[in-house]
């Protein structure tokens, strides 16, 4: 501890250089934390998804719909306890920039099968009774300052629903009770939009509740067999698998984002290492003087490493803090509910600071070794 003052003062030797090093580490940690938040968000949604609910979509792609007759057929499959269905509406609220998920559901069965959508009984009843009513997430309410009773108009984003406006009335505000469900979605009556749309009687996906979770594979196969060799063949997975495959539509995220994060960290390592090396070169005489005074080579090594770690920890803390500020605030809304649990959690923040320390340690290793091996006489002679 008695050397801490020496370490801190050495770190402040060149304020501009130290500030730039802190900033470069902060940027690396910010990117790392933000990218980790994306990965953790997808993983959290997948982990929290149900394995007692099956999701059936068109086998070709989710963007193609299925006839409503599929719903009753799936209901009749042995092992299926309950069924609901939904469509992606893709509506636009005032401006395409205002992106959030808006989904047409069969309201009674959907709310029954998704107890994670938490809404008061009164608001639920009001929603069920009003065909043009909608439920909105608490996150959306905060974002747009909505209230129960407000009128909202969506323009359809998919030609399937025509070109006319779709007015809704907010009948309730829901909270999310699980990582699998976000609070940034607008739910409304499937019948309402189906009647007004250009094409009728189509559903985007069907959700089936299993009697027995262990029968998931068998029941999935039974469902798909019902529609095999038909114009509307299906693909059925557990909701967990469906979430995972949904994320994998974006590619191998782990590899992609992990590579980006690693590249940024390595680049920062080289920058910080070069800065430390320059700083040590400038202090050749001082190091020689300290060795003359009796400082051991290992003490010099630890002082230089300590300096590197201190500077980088400050950068790491700054990067983690800014990541929490930006990612947990604005960015969540920009994800539009695609990633329900999206944010820099405490563990990610601590990891970010730790990453800063590791960058500082690795960057300082070579300069610290060079400093500790300096020949005193040669170093003193350089100035003379």
């Amino acid at each position: 501890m008695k050397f801490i003052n020496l370490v801190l003062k050495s770190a402040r030797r060149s304020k501009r250089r130290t500030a730039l090093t802190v900033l470069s580490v902060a940027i690396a940690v910010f990117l790392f934390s933000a990218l980790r938040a994306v990965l953790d968000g997808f993983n959290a949604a997948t982990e929290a998804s149900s394995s007692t609910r099956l999701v059936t979509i068109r086998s070709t792609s989710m963007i193609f719909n299925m006839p409503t007759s599929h719903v009753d057929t799936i209901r009749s499959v042995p092992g299926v306890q309950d069924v609901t269905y939904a469509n992606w509406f893709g509506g636009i609220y005032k401006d395409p920039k205002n992106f959030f998920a808006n989904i047409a559901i069969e309201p009674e069965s959907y709310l029954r099968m998704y107890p994670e959508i938490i809404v008061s009984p009164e608001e639920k009843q009001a929603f069920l009774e009003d065909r043009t009513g909608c439920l909105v997430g608490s996150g959306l309410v905060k974002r747009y300052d909505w209230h129960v009773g407000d009128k909202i108009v969506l323009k359809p984003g998919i030609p399937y629903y025509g070109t006319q406006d779709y007015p809704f009335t907010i009948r309730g505000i829901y909270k999310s009770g699980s990582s699998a469900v976000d609070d940034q979605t607008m739910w409304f009556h499937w019948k309402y939009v189906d009647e007004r749309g250009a094409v009728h009687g189509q559903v985007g996906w069907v959700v089936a509740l299993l009697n027995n979770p262990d029968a998931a594979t068998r029941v999935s196969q039974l469902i798909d067999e019902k529609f095999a060799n038909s114009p509307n063949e299906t693909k059925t997975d557990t909701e967990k698998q469906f979430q995972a495959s949904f994320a994998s539509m974006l590619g191998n995220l782990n590899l992609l984002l992990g590579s980006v994060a690693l590249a940024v960290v390595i680049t920062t390592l080289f920058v910080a290492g070069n800065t430390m090396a320059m700083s040590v070169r400038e202090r050749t005489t001082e190091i020689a003087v300290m060795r003359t005074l009796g400082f051991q080579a290992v003490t010099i090594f630890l002082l230089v490493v300590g300096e590197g770690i201190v500077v980088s920890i400050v950068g790491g803390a700054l990067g983690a803090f800014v990541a929490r500020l930006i990612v947990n605030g604005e960015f969540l809304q920009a994800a539009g509910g695609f990633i329900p649990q999206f944010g820099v959690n405490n563990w990610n923040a601590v990891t970010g600071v730790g990453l800063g320390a590791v960058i500082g340690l690795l960057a300082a290793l070579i300069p610290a070794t060079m400093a500790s091996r300096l020949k005193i006489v040669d170093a003193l002679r350089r100035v003379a």
Partner: protein
Amino acid sequence: MALIELRDVTKSYRRDAIEIPVLDRVSISVPEGDFLGLMGPSGSGKSTLLNLLAGIDRPSRGSVRIGDTEISSLSERALAAWRARNIGFIFQLYNLIPVLTAFENVELPLLLTSLSKKQRRDHVMTALNIVGLGDRAQHYPRQLSGGQEQRVAIARAIVTDPKLLLADEPTGDLDAKSAGEVLTLLQRLNQEYKKTIVMVTHDPHAAERASHLLHLEKGTLVEQVKVG
């Protein structure tokens, strides 16, 4: 009794394939409490001799004994620990650490001891008061004159109460007035505090303050003179 004993000390450096002789079979004996001046033309080996006494360089042949310790046979680690306890070094260019205050510069050698913070503080202020800079403890080197910086460097050299002070041209970068103050201080440390001092100098005025002079030429001792 001799504090310093050099026996047949030879030192040469290797630069690429060339062997450069610097000292050739030098033997000297310096009694405790002496103030020795080392003089000679540039390249005569004065600073090399000082470096050998400080333990920051090793002889190619011969032995260097300071007190009871044969320092030429110590390991690097042992040598560093020995220097911390026994040597105070004063450089021509002061070599204070610019980001540390005068207090913190003088405290540096004490960080290697087991003294408490309060004890370190007391030692530092005593040393600064001896050199007459107790009121400048919180000033940075850039806020001090050359003479004051050298006095802080002297405080740093004496703060651990070493047996031996080694000064490499301590007045080489100072004006006449400041040089005079520094030399008076060194004389006081020798006469009043009984410090043994070995000082390399080109300056005849500095040489006058020593009690003995050694002249080196081309790495060999050519003359020993008692002053005063």
